[in-house]
């Protein structure tokens, strides 16, 4: 029994159904392991963690420059900015807003730079439910290709203080 000292000679190879199950479980573990490298090379959705060191002040300056160069409109006081297809887009997270509103084109690929001016934030793109972490000091680059049109909402899903639930942003895709 589990509470007693085992009999001498307890060291025995598995047999029968137990051996079969260990074999099946091991094969399943190999399938689980191989799916990730497979998807890395053949799948279209990966998180490579591409990132560069950046100070909050420098990232804010890059975002402002990006807005000045590419602004196409305004929505509730927040600039709407359309980056060039294949170009860089900047999205600043801060307590408690996503800045600016991005306007993208379906089927084009963008390098989306994410960083924070203060605390950690969570980039959660809805209703697609795509989620990435945003950290201060890190310029997190997502190479993103919108494949559907419409108005998408960015919800913050990393706790960032009292206004966390009201930190909402937009990405428009045409």
């Amino acid at each position, binding site marked *: 029994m589990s509470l007693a*000292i085992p009999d001498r000679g*307890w060291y025995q190879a598995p047999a029968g159904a137990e051996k079969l199950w260990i074999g099946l479980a091991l094969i399943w573990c190999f399938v*689980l392991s191989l799916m990730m490298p497979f998807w890395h090379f053949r799948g279209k959705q990966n998180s490579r*963690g591409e990132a560069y060191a950046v100070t909050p002040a420098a990232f804010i300056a890059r975002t402002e420059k990006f807005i000045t160069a590419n602004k196409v409109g305004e929505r509730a006081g927040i600039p709407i900015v359309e980056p060039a297809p294949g170009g860089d887009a900047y999205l600043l997270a801060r307590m408690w807003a996503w800045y600016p509103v991005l306007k993208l084109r379906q089927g084009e690929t963008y390098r989306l730079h994410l960083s924070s001016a203060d605390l950690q934030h969570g980039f959660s793109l809805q209703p697609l439910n795509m989620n990435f972490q945003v950290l201060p*000091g890190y310029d997190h680059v997502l190479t993103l290709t919108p494949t559907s049109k419409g108005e998408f909402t960015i919800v913050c899903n990393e706790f960032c203080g009292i206004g966390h639930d009201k930190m909402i942003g937009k990405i428009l895709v045409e």
Partner: protein
Amino acid sequence: MSSATLTPPPPAPLHPVSSPGFRRCDTTGLAVCSTAERFIKFNAVAGVVFLLLGGIAAILLALTRWQVVHLLRVDWFYRILTFHGLNMLIFWILFFEVAVLYFACTVPLKARLYSPKVAWISFGMMLTGAIMVNTVIILGKADVLLTSYLPLLAHPAFYLGIILVAVGTLIAVFNYFATLYTAKRDQTYVGSVPLVTFGATAAAIIAVVTLLHGAIVMIPTFTYSMGWTPQPDPMWYRMIWWGLGHQSQQVNVCAMVAIWYLIANLATGAKPVNETVCRGAFVLYILFINLASAHHLLVDPGVGSAWKIWNTSYAMYLAVLASMIHGFTVPASVEMAMREKGHVKGLFGWVTSAPWRNPAFSGFVLSLLIFGFIGGITGVTLGTQQINIIAHNTLRITGHFHATVVGGTTLAFMALTYYVIPLMFRRDFIWRGAARVQPWLFGGGILLVSLGMSFAGSLGVPRRSYDIEPAGIFGGAAHLFLGVMGIGAVIAVIGLLLFAVLCVGTILFGEKNAGRPMADWGTAQAMVGSRVGSLAHDHWAMKGTMALTAVFLACFAVYYFANWKALADVWPVR
């Protein structure tokens, strides 16, 4: 308890029962070290108190996230969320684990606890730390949630309290290893340690690694909060913090599995089909679980694909293999014991004639099922590097760990308590009918909580968020699943309160059972003509377990590949 399931141990070289500081258990005949017994009681009682506090917090949180009720104010929501996380995941679990460790290194080995002084120091530090942390949180000086991600900053006493709890636990683990050493040296037992002690030792080894991570991350954060050193890097903080945060849950897994083996044995007389396999699986935990902090960094900047893939799979999923092995060997041991007792009808005759009236047994089975089918399958899937993109920081994550830590670990700890109190406090339970229902209430409630959270998370509902209305995008289905979570939480907390009332009521008013065996909860009875050991050489007799594990593997595969399909439907990203 009938003597059929627990026979007195054979005489050992030394007879500690007749020596001072020991008593012979009236139910099991085992020699119990009085010092160990005292500290098992202290730590278990402290654990249940923190469980109760965490449970009160749980109902406040659930009734806030259930949007129709939306109970708390926003500042108190995050405050209580911080409180809930620390009391449940850290204090309740660690105190109870120390109790399990003190049991596992003394009673099965007929050994004496190494040092009551060390046990006092450990208990004092842990209790002081826990009270400090709770006080700081309630005063509103640490609204940083369990993870306290930098640059969020709490009052220094918050970090100091956590350091005290961690170091206090490390000291208890030292007492554990010192007891193992002195027991071996004094030959209180001959041969290999019992399986329960082996599993507890695996938990203790992982706990050392875990708590060292805690010290490494918390000490510079504490000195930063005092203004003595610069701010640690937030990404570095995340990586090391999760070395504490995730691995500590693997300590729970080890302790929980050891308890599964123990209760299976107490209630049905089950013994491992193959000791080597069970022990080998514990060794796999020790070797591979260490890498699990990667689960929380899968969509983070600064760590690359190769690092993420290798670490999140715990090196080819060898720790998952360990859990899948236990998921087979535990039910197989019960099935073999039941079949040897003559319950052989069909595939599942051994299930229907199992001692379901025993709350320890029903709690253990529910723990195994909820942990395996919900917690395990979702855990591996959400921890898959790319699939994490459609799960990170949504309520899916919370749904996963409420199935593992609450439905699995907490329920197993509750189940064990139905033996700890009669055997250690030597009082029989009051309200035995209510006790038989309690695991079903708690387990059923948590199942609803976990499912409600998981489905809401699949619709994008974030975890750790006060209100989903400002986003303006969550419709009827999201609200429905948050309602399911809320109803489940009400049921589970009723089960938790019932558990606390039963424990406290029994310790104060239960009938004393010193001098006689504890009142039997119900154990598997042998049929006429059956013989223990009759299936010792039949390696294919566990037909029901084979069927159950086949169903498990099928569910696993369907859920796993359905998630890859869901991932393939979102925007390409790299």
